[in-house]
């Protein structure tokens, strides 16, 4: 299989990589770019652990071909914290103990950030439906919903 070369922007930085035509964006992020924050929980679009933003849209990167990222802007969990510190969602997840094992956390943070960009004041139900594609097996979601709401409140008052 001949390789394809792809030019993208990842977390604001220009990134070029080569990939095979059948390679997923998740594999390219993890294996070609060394960005292992996005996780593979299933590889079939069912768990959300691989969630990233592709041109601002929340996607399962295991279902996107790496070659499709040509010219696109990709945002991963690695880009959430800035030089000024953690994103309010990241802080809220620590403060509210919204992670146990933490393997779902990168995907959930990326998804929650996308939610709050669309809807800064969601109801609990809206949070739950938005995150329904992100499985967490440890927490029972209670503290996750609370953490998202706490971050949303903080971001609204900022």
């Amino acid at each position, binding site marked *: *299989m001949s390789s394809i070369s792809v030019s993208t922007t990842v977390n604001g930085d220009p990134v070029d990589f080569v990939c*095979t035509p*059948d390679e997923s964006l998740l594999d390219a992020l*993890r*294996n070609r770019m060394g*960005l*292992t*924050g*996005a*996780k*593979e*929980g*299933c*590889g*079939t679009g*069912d*768990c959300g*652990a691989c969630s990233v933003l592709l041109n601002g849209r929340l996607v399962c990167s295991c279902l996107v071909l790496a070659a499709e990222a040509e010219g696109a802007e990709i945002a*991963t*969990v*690695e880009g*959430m*914290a800035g030089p000024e510190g*953690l994103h309010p969602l*990241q802080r809220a*997840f*620590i*403060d*509210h*103990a919204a*992670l*146990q*094992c*933490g*393997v*779902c*956390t*990168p995907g959930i*943070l990326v998804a929650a950030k996308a939610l709050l960009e669309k809807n800064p004041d969601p109801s*609990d*139900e809206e*949070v*739950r*439906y938005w*995150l*329904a*594609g*992100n*499985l*967490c*097996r*440890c*927490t*029972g*979601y*209670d*503290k*996750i*919903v609370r953490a998202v709401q706490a971050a949303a409140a903080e971001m609204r008052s900022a």
Partner: protein
Amino acid sequence: MAFDSHEKRQFKQVGTRPPRPDGVDKVTGRAQYGADVTAPGMLTARILRSPHAHARIVSIDTSEAEAMAGVKGVVTGRDFALPEDAGLADIAVNVMARDKALYDGHAVAAVAAVSPAIAKAALKAIKVQYEVLPHVTDVDAAMQPGAPVVLEGRALESVPAGMSVNVTHASEFGHGDLAAGFAKADRIVERSFKTAATHQGYIEPHACLASVTVDGKADLWCCTQGQFMVRTVCAALMGMEASQLRVTASEIGGGFGGKTTVFIEPVALVLARKTGRPVKITMTRDEVFRATGPTVSTSIDVKIGMTKDGRITAGEARLRYSGGAFPCGTVDMGAMAAFAAYDLEAVRTQGWNVLTNRPKEAAYRAPGAPQAIYAVESVVDELCQILKLDPLDVRIRNAAKKGTKSSYGPVFDDIGLLATLEAAKAHPHYKAPLKPGQARGVSCGFWFNFGGNTCVSLNVNTDGTVGVTEGNPDIGGSRASISLMAAEELGIPYDKVRTIVADTASLGYNDVTDGSRVTFSVGLATIAAARDAKVKMCARAAKIWGIDDEAVEWKDGAAWPAGPNAGQFPPMSLAEIAAVSFQTGGPIAGHHEVNADGAGVSFGVHLCDLEVDPETGKTTILRYSVFQDAGKAVHPDYVEGQMQGGAVQGIGWALNEEYIYGRDGRLQNPGFLDYRVPVASDLPMIEAVILEIPNPGHPYGVRGVGETPIVPPLAAISNGVSRAVGVRMQELPLSPPRVLKAIKAA
């Protein structure tokens, strides 16, 4: 180590909720899990798995695969040593089949290649000739005479003659005169139940990276609940000495018991030895479902007698569990736990394990208990309905307490069941009115808890900070709890302590992270190691002051002269003693090694409000509360987290999760789309109410909390659904089609 009852302890840090030390790593993507590392020159391996539920392996031809460009090594069952120990031999055969494939998904060969794509292509080039054998996947069918034989000659002596060859294990517990007990009852209910096998469902698939040098030293990185267990098993399967195999536990993306054994680790090691290159294996989700986990599947009969005023006069249960294709002792846990919540004059439980063509059972949170207690709590609930008694009153009436001879033998010490039941009864949830169509389910739960082998080192740094080295992977915030206990004991701030999880070359043996043991046992060893360090620091102060060691005591993070006769010296803080340690005898460290007992049993009570859609049979959970005794909640956030997470796993088990086998014996739903675990939109908030009845076996009174919360949801939900639809439900999961069928049949 006994509870410090002599001190009226006011905890300063234990019981607070500081941020966990690994929090930043885990919210930024920096934390490294099993699949997140690579090594120079690394190969990727894939595993070929049996498509048959039961088949003799006639031949395996790997020549074509081996000849492919980029393929560096192929292994089959022949490449693995077969240890003499039966338990280890079963693990070896489960890791790689030998003469027979015993279940759909059983590994039969593996390929290491320079890329994942080549490894995958090479699997297709391996030719396995199978002779397909009759199979059996249902526990009751496997017990019938004439059932397909999974393995021969595996029955223990406890199994009575005349049972199916598939029965490997039998046990019996109880006391008292059953016939007399049932004779005293006003009402007797006898029912049979079935529960489906479920999977732990951790989001991180198994992953590992192995390397072996030509002089026989090996390194293994893997996601596991116990790096020392991995070392023991892999060293045996590799014919290596333990000291030559260093196992490092990665961050772990969930386990729940499912990562207390090995699957791919020996395969990666054998391939690394064969190829001379580092080898990485990552399971796909399909492989995780087909070849790891799951729980036992069960079939259970329960008979209980009760007086009109709600006294249980006798209880009896017969439990048939299948732990898959290998002998499995989990039924003992069920037989012991079934009636543990009750103070009974007459009780008997019998259990049998039965072989089926399913994957080898792995522990899942309180293994064996949820199924047995589901069956018992369902019958107790039905008796409450028939006799028009309040389900919590009946449980309070019959509750086991301090001094009760438990249904499995031991006499209970201080336990929190009554307090938990009373807290549930007093809670606004229990008094809240229900709307028409809604119902409330109640259940008790129980787990033994475990202590075990534990080893901790605590190093005092010269700048007054402290490093704690422990050997149990942090699966849900345990570094925070351990740091809190070290800080509490030493009297220094939490953020001056850093707790790390050591590899197998850096610390003595630690049992796996299981049995709800870590906060209890590692906490106990950390407190003891801190006390050891305090004794040494007092001796250093004594040396500086020129007085006897015994004339110095530790208080509030400092050494003080003990009493007026010791002399007048200003106290020396930990930091001050540490700063001059090189002049007073060298570095200061505390250690503790123990095989801890006194873990203290754990009880919980769950309340669940729900409604069932009569059109579809779908159950909606409206309100859910968990009451549990934590002994002492070291970091209450993570105690609540265990209670909430365990409850939700139990909700999934009760409502949706099941291993579905086709008539061909193949697993029909090996993916999260068809094996449906609870998602955020399925659930309400889960209220967690922590009770603190100190455990007499721990200096701070800590009890394990991780497992008990998965036990009550099965019956709490089934009891709620049964009341809502007016039919006693007897099989899990309560999937919409099953509930709809019950509604229609009523």
